[in-house]
């Protein structure tokens, strides 16, 4: 059973390979993709139970002893992320059955999603820094395909910029790994943590820490490096946007959290201070963007940037409350961003536009959609019983404990901006005088709306049931605060 942690990576990979053999059989593609994702979900649920009962799971491939072979490590943080990524992928695939056109479906759309999930789950699970680069490339390569699939003019134009930015960040990743290797002489993440502690983090390690922040910041969209994100993410169709918005930036955020809690823990007055300042600037710039646009896609996309800032602020505080809050908020954001993107997808499908000024009065014709959207919007802003509340509360509590009053107050203030930006969509699209819309069939509407409703339901349960989730989050935070647990699981008793 020790191989269990490889299943969430291997299952989507094998199914994707099989699905590539018959791209034109659309129904088989759909069924195959669903089976792949459901088995992945079952495997990652088992893994969650295993990690909860037996502690961190680690395996070193090829039976090499730990620092030499490639290690795969599944601690609570990574298994929670794997589980929620798979969940989002299932919902998005279900939504795609209705939303994605025939041409895309018969040109490797589902295999691309499965390959991307392979890369995402792999990046969450790997315990080897170069292997993380490889999994990043796996998920990026499939994301290139997903963003350009369809070949519309906007997509081609934006995918060129997207590819260029990611090629540069990948080259920087290789450079950073090379520097790290030359200083530390190992690539195994647990071993790196040990060796960095031994050399007592000289200046060059701090330089490498900042380089890592740049590399992962480009993927995770932190302050000066988020410029490419809004227009690139707006180009592909809604399900792809939901998948990207929910998962891809989170991989960058996870990588920052992992490296900054495991490797670079000795010079926190510089590295974590920098991370905190950048995360605050990220929140501010995201807030400005979220209020500036009248395009529903852009508003939610800028909300991704705000969320990245909030999570990283929690990660930069390095105490139990803030790290627990970060994990809570990370999972919450994966769920709620997916739900919101799918909901605005329904709105766009009904009204035929993404411009708020051309919408209005939908509450009369689609009341259920309106109220579901309102719940999701409240959840995003963190109105108490819903899912965003507990994470933000813990992050702010952690911020106060560390004495960062202004940062914490700013996060509270940003909740209001978030609420305003999403309620604007509610006011413009659902209130006001109804505008002429071409009605879409009931079947089409339900095909789009049901997955979104289920996802909002899950996020509500996640919020209300947070009491039961606390042990899991505490476990994740404890591992991040005590790298020795992680190191011991990988390298054994040494």
């Amino acid at each position, binding site marked *: 059973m020790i191989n269990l942690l490889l299943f969430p990576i291997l299952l989507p990979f094998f199914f994707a390979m099989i699905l590539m053999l018959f791209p034109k059989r659309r129904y088989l593609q759909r069924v195959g993709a669903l089976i792949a994702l459901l088995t992945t979900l079952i495997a990652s649920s088992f893994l969650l139970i295993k990690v909860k009962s037996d502690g961190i799971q680690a395996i070193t491939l090829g039976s090499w002893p730990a620092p030499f072979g490639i290690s795969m490590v599944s601690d609570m943080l990574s298994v929670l992320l794997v589980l929620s990524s798979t969940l989002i992928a299932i919902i998005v695939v279900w939504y795609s059955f209705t939303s994605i056109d025939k041409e895309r479906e018969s040109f490797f759309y589902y295999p691309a999603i499965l390959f991307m999930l392979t890369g995402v789950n792999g990046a969450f699970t790997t315990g080897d820094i*170069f292997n993380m680069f*490889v999994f990043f490339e796996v998920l990026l390569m499939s994301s290139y395909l997903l963003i350009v699939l369809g*070949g519309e*003019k906007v997509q*081609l*134009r934006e995918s060129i910029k997207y590819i260029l930015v990611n090629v540069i960040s*990948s080259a920087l990743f*290789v*450079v950073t790994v090379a520097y790290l*290797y030359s200083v530390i002489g190992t690539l195994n993440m647990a071993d790196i943590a040990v060796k960095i502690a031994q050399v007592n983090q000289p200046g060059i390690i701090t330089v490498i820490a900042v380089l890592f922040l740049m590399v992962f910041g480009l993927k995770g969209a932190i302050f000066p490096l988020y410029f490419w994100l809004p227009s690139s993410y707006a180009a592909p169709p809604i399900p792809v946007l939901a998948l990207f918005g929910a998962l891809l930036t989170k991989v960058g955020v996870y990588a920052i959290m992992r490296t900054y809690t495991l490797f670079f823990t000795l010079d926190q007055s510089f590295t974590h201070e920098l991370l905190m300042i950048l995360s605050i600037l990220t929140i501010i710039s995201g807030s400005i963007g979220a209020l500036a646009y009248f395009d529903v896609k852009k508003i939610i996309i800028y909300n991704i940037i705000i969320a990245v800032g909030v999570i990283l602020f929690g990660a930069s505080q390095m105490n139990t409350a803030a790290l627990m809050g970060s994990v809570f908020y990370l999972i919450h954001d994966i769920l709620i961003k997916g739900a919101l993107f799918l909901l605005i997808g329904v709105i766009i499908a009904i009204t035929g536009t993404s411009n708020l000024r051309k919408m209005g009065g939908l509450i009369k014709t689609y009341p259920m959609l309106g109220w579901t959207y309102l719940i999701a919007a409240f959840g995003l802003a963190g109105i108490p019983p819903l899912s965003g509340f507990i994470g933000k509360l813990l992050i702010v509590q952690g911020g106060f404990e560390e004495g960062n009053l202004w940062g914490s107050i700013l996060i509270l203030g940003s909740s209001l901006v978030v609420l305003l930006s999403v309620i604007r969509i509610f006011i413009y699209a659902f209130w006001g005088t109804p505008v002429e819309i071409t009605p879409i069939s009931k079947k089409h509407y339900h095909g789009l709306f049901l997955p979104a409703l289920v996802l909002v339901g899950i996020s509500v349960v996640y919020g209300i049931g947070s009491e039961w989730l606390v042990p899991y989050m505490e476990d994740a935070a404890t591992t991040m605060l005590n790298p020795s647990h992680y190191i011991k699981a990988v390298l054994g008793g040494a």
Partner: protein
Amino acid sequence: MEIVMSFVIGFLFMAAVYLMLSKSLLRIIIGTGLLSHGAHLLILTMGGLDGSAPPIVSYGVTDYADPLPQALILTAIVISFGVTAFFLVVAYRSYQELETDNMNLMRGTEEND
């Protein structure tokens, strides 16, 4: 030897940045190629360039070349080859669709494709 390589890598990065800042899409792609070459050479240099040690470990040999940088470089080359090929295809396709390879004309907004 490391010093010479550092200059070569620096030059490659400089040329890559220069090319990527130009307007023509093809030059940008060549720039990304040079950038990845620079990164690969950097990995090789970081492993140490002492050419005397044998590459094979057998019993009794204590001084051998580090096998890891080559493995890393091979992986990175394959990946950047794939990405460059894909990038070229996307560039050609968008040249056909958008009828330009000038990045200034590809700015575009929501209303103006």
